[in-house]
Each structure stands twice: as C-alpha cells, then as structure tokens.
C-alpha cells in the first residue's frame, strides 16, 4: 500500500506492506538511514523519532499507523543554516557519542525531554533515557551533554 507522511516538514511517500515497521519504512523506503535499528524487541531506542510531536520508538509502530502523521527524524534536527541544534552541539562539545549508533535515538530522546522539562536534574535525565541503550559512553557524557543543552552548569570536559 502507499503511505504518505510529513517527514521533517516535507511530504514523502512510499510503498509498505501491512507488516512494515515505521523504522524500516524510514530507512528502506524513504532512504532516511539516520534512524537506526539496534534490536528486535523494542528495547534499545536507536530508532527513536517523533511522531506528531511525541517521542516514539519507530520499531514499535507500523508504517501504516503513521500514514498522514508528522514525523521528525535526526535528519531534520540541525538548524536551518545547517549548524547543529543546541542538543546536537552539546553532544559534540561534551563527547556524548563514540560510535554514533545510539546517537540519533539519544538526540531525539533528549530533544523530547527538554521540550517538557527545560531544566531536568541528573536523575530525571537518566530516568528519561531508560529506553535508550548506549554501549560506548557509560552515559556519563550523554548526561552531561543534556544538562549543558538545557543551559545548566556542567564541569568542563577534560577539566585539566
């Protein structure tokens, strides 16, 4: 069947079977490979996107369910002039990524957190990231990056 949705502000459409997941549709049909697939039990969060403004693991929904929806993915996060948005920039500034595989999901989760909680505590950040696994960073610098993106003081990276 033909599915259409607004992705990062643009109308896009493609073919999907009933069983096609939104994550697969974004990657394979729309060529938006920034959204990653890290598991098959909806537990890693690498596939996190926003659907109609809500943070969603795109492997937990069928593409057909997102027909007509507004979808935001990592590809649409940078500022209009191509510079990194404040969450992306904070991830770079604070070394919040290593291999980069969990990163799109982490950024989408962080953006969503800051929309509802402008100044989250460390505990609130860790709580919010419960659905996103990172194997590289031990989360230390991800937590720091999100604190920094929310305008809170964090000790400088590499304090020496």
């Amino acid at each position, binding site marked *: 069947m033909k599915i259409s949705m607004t992705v990062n502000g643009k109308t896009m459409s493609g073919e999907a*079977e009933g*069983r096609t997941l939104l994550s697969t549709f974004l*990657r*394979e049909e729309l060529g*938006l*490979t*920034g*959204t*990653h*697939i*890290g*598991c*098959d*039990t909806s*537990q*890693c969060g*690498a596939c996190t996107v926003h659907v109609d403004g809500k943070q969603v693991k795109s492997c937990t929904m069928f593409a057909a369910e997102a027909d007509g929806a507004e979808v935001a*993915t*990592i*590809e649409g*996060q*940078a500022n209009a002039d191509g510079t*990194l948005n404040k969450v*992306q920039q904070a*991830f*770079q*500034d604070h*070394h919040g*990524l*290593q*291999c*980069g*595989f*969990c*990163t*799109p999901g982490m*950024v989408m989760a962080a953006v969503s957190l800051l929309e509802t909680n402008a100044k989250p505590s*460390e*505990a609130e*950040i*860790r*709580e919010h*990231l*419960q659905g*996103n*696994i*990172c*194997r*590289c*960073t*031990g*989360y*230390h*610098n*991800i*937590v720091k990056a999100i604190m920094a993106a929310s305008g809170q003081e964090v000790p400088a*990276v*590499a304090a*020496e």
Partner: protein
Amino acid sequence: MPKDGIGASTKRREDIRFLTGTGRYTDDINLAKQLHVHFLRADVAHATINGIDTSAADSMPGVARIFTAKDFDGVGGLPCGWQVTDKHGQPMQEPKHPILAEGKIRHVGEIVAAVVADTVEQARDAAEAIELDLTELPAVIDMKKAVADASVKVHDDLTSNLCYDWGFVEENKAAVEDAFAKAAHVTTLELKNNRLVANPMEPRVAVGDFTAHDGMSTLYTTSQNPHVIRLLMGAFVLGIPEHKLRVVAPDVGGGFGTKIFHYAEEAFCTFAAKQLKRPVKWTSTRSEAFMSDAHGRDHVTKIELALDADNNFTAIRTETYANMGAYLSTFAPSVPTWLHGTLMAGNYRTPVIYVNVKAVFTNTVPVDAYRGAGRPEATYQLERLIDQAARELKVSPVDLRRQNFIKPDQFPYATPVAVEYDTGNYDATLDKALDLADAAGFEARAADSKSRGKLRGFGVANYIEACGIAPSNLVGQLGARAGLYESATVRVNATGGIVVMTGSHSHGQGHETTFPQVIADMIGIGADQVEIVHGDTANTPMGMGTYGSRSLAVGGSAMVRAAEKVINKAKKIAAHIMEASDSDIELKDGQFTVAGTDKSLAWGDVTLAAYVPHNYPLEDLEPGLEETAFYDPSNFTYPAGTYICEVEVDPDTGKIDVLNFTAADDFGNVVNPMIVEGQVHGGVGQGIGQAMLENCAYDEDGQLLSASYMDYAMPRAADLPMITVDHSCQTPCTHNPLGVKGCGEAGAIGSPPALVNAVLDALNRNGHDIAHIDMPLTPSRVWQAMNK
C-alpha cells in the same frame, strides 16, 4: 604548537555526520539489484542432520537460491588465527569450522541453510518452509563435565572435548609447589568469570558484491580490521587472491572485540554474490547477534596465593577452565593463554607463578576476545584473591597491595610470566585514587549509611594490562599465525594538505580527530589540514586493525614513522631551495628555517616544490612527498591503574547502588584527554555491567536463555553513576615514539573486581562472613549470600 595538537581536547570531527544522521554504516549501503539472505539457524544445541528438504521453499516467491553445506564442498572452513601448544608440547585440537553446518549441528544459532531472495521477508518466509530431519543428541554444556566425561563429544573426530591443557610457565611448576609447601598462609578462591555478549549497538551486517567486468569481489562488513578479513577469507576460505578482493568496513557502530573475527556470514555473502552475480546482503537481527556473535569471558577458576609470615606474596597457582564454545573463533585460543597467563603477576612482586588453563569445547556459541580479553579475567581473580587474603589475615587490603607492589625504581621489571613491564608507578595511581575517592571520609559515610539501614562498602582494585599488541616475532613464537604490526601512508598534497591512510580502524575511538592532532603537532599546521582514510583495503596499506588498545600505540607509531620520513625529505627539499645544508633546517609552526639565518620557507612552498620540481635536487631526490611505514612494536605496553568503587547494599533486598566510581589510570602520554576519558567511562560502564547485570546463560540442553535485551540486562543510564576519571599519573611508554600505552580496555578490566570487592566489604564489615559471590551480583544473589 598548534592549538589542536597533542594534549588538546579537540572536539571530534566525525561527530557532525553521526549527529545529523549522515553516517554511513554498513546497513546503510544498498547496491543495485541486491538480494537478501536469511539464515536458517539451528534451534537445538546438538544434533545429527539427516536431511534438509528445500523442495517446497525453492519455489517460494522471490527465492533466488537456497544454499546448504553441500554447496560449500571445496570451500575452506573459517580459520583459527592462533595455535596454542599444550603443556606436553602438542598442538591444540583444532576442528573444522564450516560456513554452514556439515552433517551435525553443534550450537544453537549455527547456520543450517541460507535462503537468498529478492527481499528479506521473502527469504524469511521461504526459510520457514524448509524441512529439517534431525536426530537430537545430548548437549555438552558444563565445562568440567565435558572434560571429565568424553561419552558425548562436540566433535566426533577429536579425542576429547579438551582443546588444550596449557601450563605456564611449566618450568616454574616445581618452584611454585615448593613455595606453597613453605607458605605461612594460603588463600584460595573459586570463582567464575561470567559469560558475556559484547553487544555493540550496531548489529553485524555483510554485503557481498561481485563485478563481472573486472572479476572483483567486494565485501562491505562491520569489521574492526578489514585487512585481516580480506586475508583470512581470501586465502583460507574462498581462495580469492587479495588483488581480486576488496573489504570495506565503513562507519562501524562499536566493536568491543566481537567485530575482530571472521564470520561465516561474511564468507557466505561474498561467495553467494559471485555465484548469483548479484549483490547479497545480510543484516543481523539482535536475536541472531546473541546466537552468532562470538561471546566473551566464561572462565571457571581456582586460584591460590601463598604468603610468607610477613605477608609477602611468595607464589600464585591457578587452574582455569576456559570455554571455547563449539568451534574455535579467530583468536579464541590466545585469550585464556597468552592474553591471560602473562598478566597473572598483576602489579605485584610475586616471584613464582603457575597458570594452568584447560580450554574446552561445549555446544555453545564460540567464545573469543571481548573488551580486555583475558586480562579482565586475570585481574579479577587476582584482585578478588588479594582482598580475601587481607580479610583472612586481618590487614588492610590497600596496605597488603602496596606492600607487594612492584616499586617505581624496579622498572623495567621482568615478571615470572614471561613479560617485561617497561614503566609504571602503582603507588602513584593508588594514592591518586584514594585521594579522589575520599578514602579518609569513608568511615563517616559508612556510619551515615548505617543510620539509614544501608550497608556501605569500599572496594579497591589495581590492574595492569598488556596493550599495543604486539611484537610479531614474539607472538609468532607463541602460536600467532599473523604479524601484529601496523601501517600508515602519509600523503602530502601539492598545496600542503595531508591524507593519512592507516591500517587502524575507528569504530567509536575517534581516530579521525586524534591522528590529525599528532601530525599537526609534528609539522606545526592545523589539524584541519589533515584527513584520515581508514577502513577500506583498496586505499589503505595492509594493516592489522583495531583491538587490544593498539591503535595509537602501534598504528599511531606507524603514522609517526611515516611522517618523520616525510619531514626528512621535505627538509632536504627546503635545504636545496634555501641553499643550506640539510642538517641546518628546522621545522617549526609550519615554517622551515635555516639555523642562524633569517631564511625561511612555508610548509606549503616546500610541498608545492615536491610536486612542481623546477628548483629541485632531481639527481638526489625523487619528486613527490608520500611515505609509508610499517611499525612493529618491540614490546607490549603496560597501562595500569587503581579503581575504587563505593556501594550501598540494601540488606532487605540485596540491591546494590553504585554511589561513586573512581578511576586513576596511567596511560603514559595522552593525545586527546576528552577521548581518553570517554574510553574509560565506556569501559567502566561495561565492567559495572558485567559485575552487576550481564549474564549470558544456557540451560543444560544448550538453549540460550538470554537471547534478547529482555533477558540479557544491559546497563542503562540509571544503573550507572557519574565516573571520576584521572590520568595525571603518567609514566610514558619507553619504546614507542609517542610514549603512549592505550586506554580502550582499562575501564572494563579494572572495574569488575573493584565493584565486587566493594560489595563484599559492605557485607563483611556489617557482620557477614562471605568470601565470594559470583558475578553478576544481582539482588537475588546478594540476598541469598546474606541469608544462607
């Protein structure tokens, strides 16, 4: 010195693509007319295959072809890269490791048939229509049973389930026995190093391609070492010469060891693409990853420490059962031997040591290197044992360690387990860690915990590891079937920009940022003028790749050597142009000057002259400015440090809270502190995962019980604390040009014993008498130990 040279926390340039969704991982690669493969994997651990009926599946929609073992007649098995010699001087038992199961299934997840179709869904649907005729056999899972009882063998053509019985150092055995006979005190521990799954977040992917016009095979794969895959797959499996085979490992989403090895799926996709004349792609699901990525650890050990009446260590003796799984993965035999036995001296002056390792075949997924590989197992045993000895002797575990340290003036220090530590200062990292962890304030914090009904504990562990793998001639004597040098080509362009082609591979380590920092420092130009190329055998020199914390120590050294050659040649060109002698030319801040004069030339003027050689010493010097170096280290490097963990245990539930974690490491010189600290954070995260959460479990029939993130507990953000990291105690490596040691594995090595020691401290100082609890220290295990 440029602002982004050695020592600067330069931000990572690779982050831009990863943060904007424009990274190019293997699964992002799709080739025209590509087919997809779905592997039908065994769901039993041990069985005879009587027949595979694909007749219904063959004609299913979209199916291009179904492969079984008979299609691989004449194709080699997956090679093992290391041959261990046992204590009797005999080579290890080495079974064939077929691409697809041949006649027998030996572990859950082994590939029985491969369905290639137009889409993944069609391939999966067709696989369901394949009929297997199997006779199930009893499975061999427990290592000790596998050795004691040979009635069920994993491999019928081997004499037993024992791969090798290794004694190290065999000549020390009598002296060790003697020291134990004379000991004033002996401490013994039996412990397990839990089986783990590395779980890089990117599952493995392979895309095979064959282009008829030039007869080239290309494999895109999630690998830490594309040249190694090209060599193993080309020469030993498929018989494709290296000049007809290209292996590309683009952005790779984490490795941690498990993407070193050559896997059946890689060989399959390359082979099938050539057969079918169309690209063939495989993307692992996470469930497949659990049953096909090589697992890690899985040792069962008895370790004993002999001490004299003054509490000096006099001998160590160990007996370890190490699981190999059903087949030998690429470097599996080296992990419990040369990467483990050689580290059993730890940071201490134990005069004699004997290590016995029995490597065992079982009906489980192959086990191979995972972050630290052998060194975490050695460190864990030793650091748990010393804590227990201190408890039995009623002395401080810190004092007992310090008393037995190799002291700073004793380097270079030859251990009784065949390695020579070049530098170190273990007192310094211990002092630093105790200070950062506020050891002095611990009793007050413990009293506060007690007032809240919680048990607080403080755990210390030291570690040493051998990195910078490795001197080729040495590892050759030890059974390695490969050299372990690294390579780099430094290509200077006419206008002065530089491309470094390296055999090292980055899958999260940040080489694209750190390697240019080194070149910028050497020449005095901006790091942004240097580009790193890696991960493609077509445009990088033969290299051994990234593992064992070797990239900067070995790959970086190769790059330095190549850059030195470039600089020497550039100085000759500059000398010619400025009519001076070579030896008077200095290069600083990107300017060549003649000593004692005001003559100078910019870097770009000289590089231009190299490619536009009008005023040029053509009789003596070739045009161009490009050099390659291969660097073979003369020794391992020996990073070391002290890790301290502080926990609170809830006595009602056994739940552990990690309150503070401190890592004081000696990595020698540091190129990018930000990246080094990130490596330690990640390693500690995995080590805490091993100690508290992660466990790869089989039932006695060989069913994998932990085959998804529902059952295998990965550390999540709320499980881990902020981590205090320090690397200011630096004793630079004496034998590589950068004085660096390697930082990738330390975190995963030092943290498990620190955490377990902290928990046992919490329990024992609060009235319990518990010698040991096996990892992972789940609430139920801790509670049961407290309520026995």
